[in-house]
């Protein structure tokens, strides 16, 4: 009898420590009643019923997809933007683990976590979009369409999710206090990082390469033999900008978790990241023009689609690039952050242009997402943010675990 209660007690305190942030259950529940959680609740109340409709009545009632527009917001935003913006994980992991830029060490973990969750929720979004999501593993285990670029994407996202999970494992083991496993997990990191970079290079560019099969549908200003390279370089841009943005938010929200010296360093890191992002963005800007020159599409710049293209090129690539440069010149982390947000919007704009706005440019009817498509996307993003918060509040992501500092 006594042993039994004893066991229960220790289980109870484990749950309390690990899951309820050290608070008794009631107190924990009370701590959840905040205005921001109320907003989350409202979003769920809208999103969940839509999910039920989607999975019981098909895509028809909740989307405006048609036979001419088989891909809409869920592919254009949830998948294409999701993958690009999750690129921060591999950018930072390679900078620190492979190229030895140690000063970025404190922000690797949040970046890897963002990357992992980003991909995870890309797959969740994909499950809404696929006609038969329960067949998602088919290309991995059952029927292999090796001629398909999407086959490559499928495999890589699957492998990369695994790799990123491995990369994040040390944090989980530290949280659980499993020292032995942690030792092994740490050893795996280099291998996982190299593998992760390869996979990312390939699937980031493969996402662009998917559109190589639509030369008659995607407007020539966006369609280019270089589109895989555009997608790859812009994923670096997006990833770095996202790291700047995400680490800023984390600092605001979880500031109490971050050590003092890190706070002092933080602006310097931001500027360093900004510099890297600016170089990548500049490369991207030049490459895009080479694409236009390669296809000799200068005459198309005068058309309506040309205006859209110029808006993307000047308003969402050149301008944020200039803001980055300004931020670097004045050594202002705040300006860099502004540039990062702007760049992120620019990459989103690009992915939506490729998948939606400049797609089927020769057809007269346009696709406009159903409001429920927006609602689902917002819900998925919200769940992603919630998960991030849940993990950051528990595991050693933003701070170093007192028992396992990096030098061990």
């Amino acid at each position, binding site marked *: 009898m006594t042993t039994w209660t004893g066991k229960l007690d220790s289980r109870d305190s484990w749950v309390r420590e690990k899951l309820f942030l050290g608070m008794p259950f009631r107190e924990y529940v009370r701590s959840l009643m905040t205005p921001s959680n109320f907003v989350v609740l409202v979003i769920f109340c809208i999103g969940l019923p839509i999910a039920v409709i989607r*999975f019981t*009545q*098909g*895509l*028809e009632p909740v*989307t405006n*997809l048609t*036979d*001419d527009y*088989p891909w809409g917001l869920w592919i254009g935003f949830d998948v294409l933007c999701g993958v690009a913006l999750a690129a921060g994980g591999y950018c930072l992991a*390679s*900078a620190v683990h*492979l*190229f*030895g*830029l*140690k000063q970025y060490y404190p922000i690797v973990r949040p970046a890897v976590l963002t990357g992992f969750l980003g991909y995870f929720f890309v797959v969740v979004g994909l499950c809404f*979009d*696929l*006609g*038969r*999501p329960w*067949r998602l593993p*088919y*290309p991995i285990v*059952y*029927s*292999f*369409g*090796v*001629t*398909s*670029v*999407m*086959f*490559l*994407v499928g495999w890589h996202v699957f492998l990369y999710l695994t790799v990123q999970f491995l990369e994040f494992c040390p944090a989980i083991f530290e949280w659980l206090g499993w020292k032995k496993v942690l030792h092994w997990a740490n050893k795996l990191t*280099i291998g996982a990082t*190299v593998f992760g*970079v*390869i996979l990312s290079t*390939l699937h980031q*560019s*493969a996402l662009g*390469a*998917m559109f*190589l*099969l*639509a*030369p*008659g549908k995607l407007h020539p200003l966006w369609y280019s*033999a270089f589109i*895989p*390279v555009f997608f790859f*370089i812009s994923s*670096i841009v997006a990833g770095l900008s996202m790291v700047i943005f995400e680490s800023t938010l984390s600092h605001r929200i979880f500031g109490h978790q971050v050590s003092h*010296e890190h706070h002092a360093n933080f602006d310097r890191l931001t500027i360093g990241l900004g510099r*890297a992002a600016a*170089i990548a963005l500049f490369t991207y800007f030049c490459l895009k023009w080479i694409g236009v020159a390669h296809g000799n599409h200068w005459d198309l710049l005068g058309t309506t689609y040309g205006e859209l293209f110029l808006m993307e090129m000047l308003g969402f690539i050149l301008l944020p690039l200039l803001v980055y440069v300004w931020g670097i010149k004045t050594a202002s982390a705040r300006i860099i952050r502004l540039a990062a947000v702007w760049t992120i919007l620019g990459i989103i704009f690009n992915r939506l242009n490729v998948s939606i706005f400049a797609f089927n440019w020769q057809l007269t009817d346009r696709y406009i997402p159903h409001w429920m498509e927006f609602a689902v996307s917002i819900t998925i993003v919200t769940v992603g943010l919630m998960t991030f918060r849940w993990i950051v509040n528990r595991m050693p992501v933003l701070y170093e675990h007192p028992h396992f500092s990096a*030098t061990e």
Partner: protein
Amino acid sequence: MDRNSFLKTLGVAGAALTSLPSLGKARTRVISPDWMGMLTDLSLCVGCRRCEWACNDANGLPNESLSSFEDQSVFDETRRTEAYKFTVVNRFEADGYPKPVYVKKQCMHCIEPACASACLVKAFRKTSAGPVLYNEDVCIGCRYCMIACPFHVPAYEYSDAFAPAVKKCTMCFERFTEQGEKPACASICPQEAITFGKRSELLQLAREKIRSHPDRYVDHIYGEHEVGGSNWLYISPVPFEQLGFRTDLGETPYPEMTRGFLSAVPLVLVIWPMLLMGAYSFKQRKQKAEHSCTIDEEEVS
């Protein structure tokens, strides 16, 4: 390893990715002399839409009475194929041609189908008999095939939650291979505007028609070369671009578009790890060297 070298590495990879399409060029195109095809003679079609009825009938699609297909109002707008309409007839007015021209649209049964090269689970196959067939049993419903098809043919059952499938014309594959009958549309056409036969013979027939009646046809067999050629062919009294046909698609088979990218993949798989591990060991060595002189500040923190 500093940032500059990092960018250099990136540049090399970028170059590897872009300069490789030439590697994918060697291809073997399957052209079977015996495979079957269809030839639609647009100068003969009168727009009775019986083929639509017969197609619905043969494929067990929702159908109406044959007489209801005489309704001309459907021609007010240009239609495309849908989940339960594998073929549709559209009406076009062409410059300097006295009559309206009716165009039957359906899957072209491409020689190198874009849909098949897009599918990540190999749901499409080009049969040696000619038709391009779809297998619902493996399809995951990503709809990439619909994105890829240059002719806007495959359609999707968006209203089905539990077993949605891609839908398109099969050229009545089973009808002609098992029952020895012509495809439904070719059988019913009162004008004999649709001829079923070996593709090679249909091409000869088409050429013959164009040669003996240069006044009646433009000198173009649509489907002979478009996107690498298709098993469905058209001849027309007016230029095809006036009839809603895309004449800007080129002659390159669609699978070719991604072949270069795909053949670059193994190279990235080989080159990248080498570069990255190289960078890593370089950095390790440099760090060790630094270590032996001074202790890196950051190491201590």
